[in-house]
C-alpha cells in the first residue's frame, strides 16, 4: 500500500506535511532535514526540486531555489543523497518540482529512481491534467507514484470533481489566489472556500497549503481539511545549517502543539 494511503488510514486529522527545498541551506542537508522532520513529528515530507524559474512560488521559496542551485543541487545529486533514505525514515515522501528538470532527466528514468528510493507521490504544478492523463499517468502508475493535483479558490466545482476523480493520495488545496509564502491570517473568503470544498465530500483527503505559517493558521487549516502543508515558514526557520536538529524540532513543535486559540 502506498505510504500516503497508509497515513490517511491511520490519521484523519492534523496531518502536517512539511516542504523544504533540496540543497538548502546547504547541499548535503537533505537527509538530516528529513530525519529530523520525522523525529519531530511531521507526518509527511515534500522535497522541492529546485528550478531556475519557479513561477508559482513567492520570494522565500524562490530564494531557496536559487541558493540550492548555486550549491550544486541537481536531480542526480538528490537521488544519490536519497539512496538509503528508506533505511532511515518511514513517513510518506513526495517530490515537488517544475516539469522541465524532470523532462531533461528523462521522465521514465525519473520515475524509476523515485520508485527504487521509495518516493510515494509527485506534485508537479506546471504539469497540466490533460498532459498527465495522456502521457504521464501510465508511467507514474507503473512506478507506484501518486500524482497530487492542486485546487484553488478559483477552481470551478466541475473541475474540482474532475481533479478528485483523477487524483490519488490527497488533494492539495491552495488556500488563496496567490503564490507560496506566509500571509498574516486566513480570511473570511478563504473560510467560505474551505467550507464549499468540505461540502463537496471529495473521495480524496485534502491538505491546505500556501500561507500556513504558525500554530494559528495550522489549526485553522486543520478545522477545514485533513491537515496542512507548510513551506516558506519552514524555509525561513532553517536559513542556516547550524543546529539544524534543534531548529527543526522547535519549529515542528511550535506548529503542532494545539493552541486552542481559535
Amino acid at each position, binding site marked *: 500500500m502506498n505510504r500516503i494511503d497508509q497515513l490517511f488510514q491511520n490519521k484523519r486529522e492534523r496531518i502536517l506535511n512539511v516542504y523544504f527545498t533540496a540543497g538548502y541551506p546547504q547541499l548535503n542537508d537533505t537527509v538530516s532535514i528529513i530525519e529530523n522532520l520525522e523525529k519531530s513529528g511531521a507526518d509527511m515530507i515534500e522535497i522541492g526540486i529546485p528550478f531556475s524559474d519557479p*513561477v508559482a512560488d513567492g520570494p522565500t521559496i524562490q530564494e531557496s531555489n536559487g541558493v540550492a542551485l548555486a550549491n550544486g543541487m*541537481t536531480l542526480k545529486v538528490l537521488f544519490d543523497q536519497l539512496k538509503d533514505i528508506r533505511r532511515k525514515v518511514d513517513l510518506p515522501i513526495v517530490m515537488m518540482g517544475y516539469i522541465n528538470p*524532470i523532462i531533461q532527466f528523462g521522465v521514465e528514468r525519473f520515475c524509476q529512481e523515485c520508485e527504487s528510493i521509495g518516493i510515494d507521490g509527485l506534485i508537479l504544478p506546471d504539469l497540466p491534467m490533460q498532459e498527465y492523463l495522456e502521457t504521464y499517468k501510465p508511467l507514474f502508475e507503473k512506478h507506484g507514484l501518486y500524482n497530487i493535483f492542486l*485546487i484553488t479558490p*478559483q477552481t470551478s466545482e466541475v473541475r474540482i470533481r474532475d481533479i478528485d476523480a483523477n487524483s490519488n493520495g490527497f488533494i492539495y488545496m491552495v488556500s488563496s*489566489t*496567490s*503564490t507560496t509564502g506566509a500571509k498574516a491570517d486566513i480570511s473570511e473568503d478563504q473560510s467560505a472556500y474551505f467550507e464549499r470544498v468540505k461540502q463537496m465530500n471529495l473521495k480524496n483527503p485534502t491538505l491546505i497549503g500556501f500561507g500556513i505559517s504558525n500554530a494559528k493558521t495550522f489549526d485553522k487549516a486543520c478545522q477545514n481539511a485533513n491537515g496542512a502543508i507548510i513551506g516558506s515558514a519552514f524555509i525561513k526557520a532553517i536559513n542556516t545549517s547550524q543546529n539544524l536538529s534543534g531548529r527543526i524540532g522547535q519549529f515542528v513543535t511550535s506548529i503542532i502543539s494545539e493552541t486552542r486559540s481559535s
Partner: protein
Amino acid sequence: MKVKVDDRGYYGNFGGAYIPEMLYPNVEELRQNYEAILAEPEFQKQFNRLLKDYVGRPTPLYLANRLSEKYGAKIYLKREDLCHTGAHKVNNTVGQILLAQRLGKKKIIAETGAGQHGVATATVCALMGVECIVYMGEVDMARQKPNVERMRILGTEVRPAKSGSRTLKDATNEAMRHWINNPTDTHYIIGSVVGPHPYPEMVARFQSVISKEMKSQLQSEIGRENPDYVIACVGGGSNAAGAFYHYYDQEEVQLVAVEAAGKGNNTGQSAATTTLGRPGVLHGSKTILMQTDDGQVVEPYSISAGLDYPGIGPVHAHLFETGRARFLSATDDEAMEAGIALSKLEGIIPAIESAHAFAALDQLEFKTEDVVVINLSGRGDKDLDTYIQWGKY
C-alpha cells in the same frame, strides 16, 4: 505542410499550456473567448480603425534600391519601424487591450525586456484609461532608462523584477506571479508569441496584419502576392510570426528566421536558441529552450535586449523542427555592421533587433529576379547609445 495550432494549443510537438492550477481559470477564460471576440465585426472594426488611425497602418512596403543593388536581388522593407511607438509591438497591444475590455478586465500587466513591448502596452493603456503595471528586470531598467521613463510619462507603473537574473525571463516570471495573485480583474498582455496556449496563436494573429499587408502590397507592386523570401529576426518571435503568418502554407516562399548569436555561438554568450537549445518547458509552453543538462534555464546574451530570451515561440520551434523555416544567426558585430550599412545605404537606422535580419543577407545567395521582404520590425532611436558605444560608423 500546414502550420496550424491544434485544439490543445500545439504546433506539432510544441506549445500546450503548462501552467499551475492558479492560472488555469484565467488562461481558460481567454482560450474559450478569444476566437469569438476576434470574430466579432465590432471588434474587427475597432481594431482596424485603431491600426489605421492610431498606429498608422498600413505600413509601407518600400523597395530598397541601393540595398537591392548591393545584394543583387529585389529587396523590400516592411516598414514596421514606422508604427506608432517605433515597432510592431503595438499591433498586438492594441488587439489585446480591446480583448481585455471585452473580458471585463480593469487592470493590465505586462513584461518587457528592452522596453518596447512595455511602451506599447503603456501606450494603449493610456489611450483607454486603464491602470497598467509593467514588470521589467532590474538590470534591463538600468540598460533601457529612456523606455522606463517613456512608460512612466504614459502613466504606467514600472516594477523592477529583482529575482533570478533580473532580465526579461524574470520579468515574465514576476508578471505571471502577479497574475496568480490577481486573477479576476487583471489581464496579462504577453508581448511575444510565447506563453501558454492561446497566447502564442493570439499574439501571432494580432501580428499577422504584417503579412496580410505584404501580400496585397506585393500584388500591386509586382503582380504576385508571394515573395521568394521573407526574413525576420527572432527573439520570442512575434514580428517573425506576423511576417510569416500568411505564408506558412505557401511553400514556395522561403521563410528565414534570424536569431542573435551574441559574441558567437561557441562563446557561451549567445541567444541563438535553435542552435544552442533543446526541447523543454518554460513560461507555459513546450518549446526549444536554452538550458543546462539539468534543465535549468540559461540566461542568454545579445547586444540587443529584445532578442535575449532563452526560448522561442512554439510555432517557431515547429517551423525549425519541420524545416519549414530556415534558421540563421547573426553575431553582435554582424548585426551592428548591418545596421550601420542600412543607415548609410537607405537612410534608415534600424533597431538592433531588426539589424539582425539584415545581417542574414550576407549569408544568403540570391538570384537577381528574387523578391525578398525583410521585416524591419523597429526603429533605432532607442538604440542610439548602443550604436554610439559600438562606435564604428
